[in-house]
């Protein structure tokens, strides 16, 4: 086991900068998600760490040892591919045995290790099958067993659950997390699924256009995004744009929004406020008054989407549509077209510098 350090790594393909001075520390034993839209460079970064491709500049270290010019087969990593990449000509057991057998381990050791790895992923009885006889979830488990049986220093996963259907994906998320805890391996996985990143990882790195936008624990990124992009890419957010006042922003129509978290932006500069939809209280205005200092706006419900345990209201206000999510507590539901009052605490408002 080992941590991974990526320092000032850049990689270009022709004129396209796939990675632009990315630095990120993956601590030993952690579970990291690299999150970003397609083309953000997350897979390129994973391939640099794996050693399929070498950076133009920068340093990559695994367990303190510089590896940026070490080919993949010498890096002692385990990798799970998006399409599993199981060898179709080999049985499940031979697939798992591959890494040990190219190393020249004795046959008896290989057989024992393979069985242990297959037991770990709960496929102990399927060693004799061929990959095409397995379901998607089973193939995923074989790919995982194959990647960890060689006791790699770090486990890399490239959109490992992307090809599975929703229910199976949730099962595999839990399973993957269990196995990762059990063997305590540093794990880096690439995903474009924000929910997967939030539920599985200890830390998330958000990438965009080859740059690291923000990095930290899921709660921190969700509660204190440092940019509009981070706020809207990880979860939903209502964005207000205006001029910084020192304690919030002033919208073009003169309304002020107070923010008590986030960056400090000098008064007068362009700035934005991000508010999560579930932090906003929606009412007809007749109910008990909000505590003093709360942000307050009026608008009109344009649409309501009922989703069982919650409802999403789209509220039109001054040319902007705001999103509010309300838990289903049995309270009266608001009709479309109804004028409403929105209110939320400055504590729920994150100030970010304008993009």
């Amino acid at each position, binding site marked *: 086991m080992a941590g991974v350090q990526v320092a000032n790594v850049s990689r270009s393909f022709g004129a396209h900068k796939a990675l632009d001075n990315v630095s990120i520390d993956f601590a030993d034993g952690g579970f990291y998600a690299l999150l970003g839209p397609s083309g953000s460079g997350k897979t390129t970064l994973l391939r640099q760490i*794996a050693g399929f491709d070498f950076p133009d500049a920068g340093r990559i270290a695994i367990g303190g040892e510089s590896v940026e010019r070490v*080919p993949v*087969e010498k890096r002692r990593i385990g990798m799970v*591919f998006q399409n599993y990449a199981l060898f179709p000509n080999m049985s499940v057991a031979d697939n798992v045995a591959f*890494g040990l057998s190219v190393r020249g381990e004795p046959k008896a050791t290989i057989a024992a290790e393979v069985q242990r790895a297959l037991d770990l992923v709960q496929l102990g009885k399927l060693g004799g099958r061929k990959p095409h006889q397995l379901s998607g979830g089973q193939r995923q488990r074989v790919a995982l067993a194959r990647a960890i049986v060689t006791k790699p220093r770090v486990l890399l996963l490239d959109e490992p659950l992307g090809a599975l259907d929703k229910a199976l994906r949730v099962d595999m998320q839990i399973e993957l997390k269990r196995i990762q805890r059990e063997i305590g391996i540093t794990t880096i996985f690439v995903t474009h699924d924000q929910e997967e990143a939030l539920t599985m990882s200890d830390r998330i790195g958000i990438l965009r256009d080859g740059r690291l936008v923000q990095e930290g624990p899921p709660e921190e990124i969700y509660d204190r995004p440092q940019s509009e992009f981070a706020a809207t890419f990880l979860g939903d957010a209502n964005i207000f744009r205006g001029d910084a006042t020192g304690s919030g922003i002033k919208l073009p129509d003169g309304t002020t929004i107070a923010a008590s978290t986030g960056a400090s932006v000098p008064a007068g500069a362009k700035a934005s406020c991000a508010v999560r939809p579930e932090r906003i209280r929606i009412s007809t205005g007749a109910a008990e008054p909000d505590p003093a200092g709360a942000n307050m706006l009026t608008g009109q419900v344009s649409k309501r989407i009922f989703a069982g345990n919650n409802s999403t209201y789209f509220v039109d206000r001054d040319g902007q549509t705001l999103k509010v999510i309300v838990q289903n507590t049995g309270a009266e539901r608001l009709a479309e077209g109804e004028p409403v009052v929105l209110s939320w605490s400055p504590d729920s408002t994150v100030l970010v510098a304008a993009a």
Partner: protein
Amino acid sequence: MADQLAIGSRRGLKPALPLLLPAYLWLTVAIFLPLSAMVFFSFMTDLPLAGKEWAFTLGNYAAFFSQSLYSTLLFASLRLGLEVTLWCIVIGYPAAYVLAKVLKGRSREAIFLLVILPFWSNGLVRIFSWAMVLREGGILDTALNAVLPFKINIDLMYSYPAVIIGLVHSYVPYMVLTCYLTLQAIDDSLIEAGRSLGASRRQVLWRVIIPLSMPGLIAGAALIFVPVVGSFMEPRILGGRTGTFYGTVIEDQFVAVFNWPLGAALSFILLAVVLIILALAAPVLRRAA
């Protein structure tokens, strides 16, 4: 899923008949009928031309077994087929690999064209151009002597290597094409997966790429081995006196000696031997594929 497929194919047979018939009619007329006639000939004492007397006989087949010359030549031809096939693998497989896995876009198209080019030229022209290259005072001889500081004599013409060179040149595109198709179907991530598990490029080649491209190697080998064993043009023109093989003897029977029944019998013995070899190899090949 499998059931659906089976139902689909059963339902598909009847509407498919109009599509299948032309090909099968053509095969019947063009191959089956003449071949049947040849089978008939091979059991005759003489051709029934110009009112000549003829009778049924097994003598043509017996000739193969009574004269060791034929079996010796058959073995020589089988060896020739094996050698040419091996050379085609040695030369064709790496080329197919580069085409399928290394080159992309325009350069792939250009190189591909070069591979197929021999198909576009007439076989005889191809062989005679080799004759010009290989003979003493020919292109190869002159070129080497122009470059090398010492005098060497290269006269490959009318030799066994010349036959091999000509045949490999004619047949290597088959190997490149069949291997290219299977190699191209191998997902690059399999190669990456192998390397991520600690396998060197060579180990990935032997344990992943070659086993997965075995169907292409086998198809290519079959496409090359069978016609080379019966080949007569290259051995005759490039081999001269050393170029007597089973195929040239068969050709002689038809063209020179005018003993069609013996020629036909020798052809069917060759066919039988090739079929036996393929049948014996089938279980091994199937496991490899």
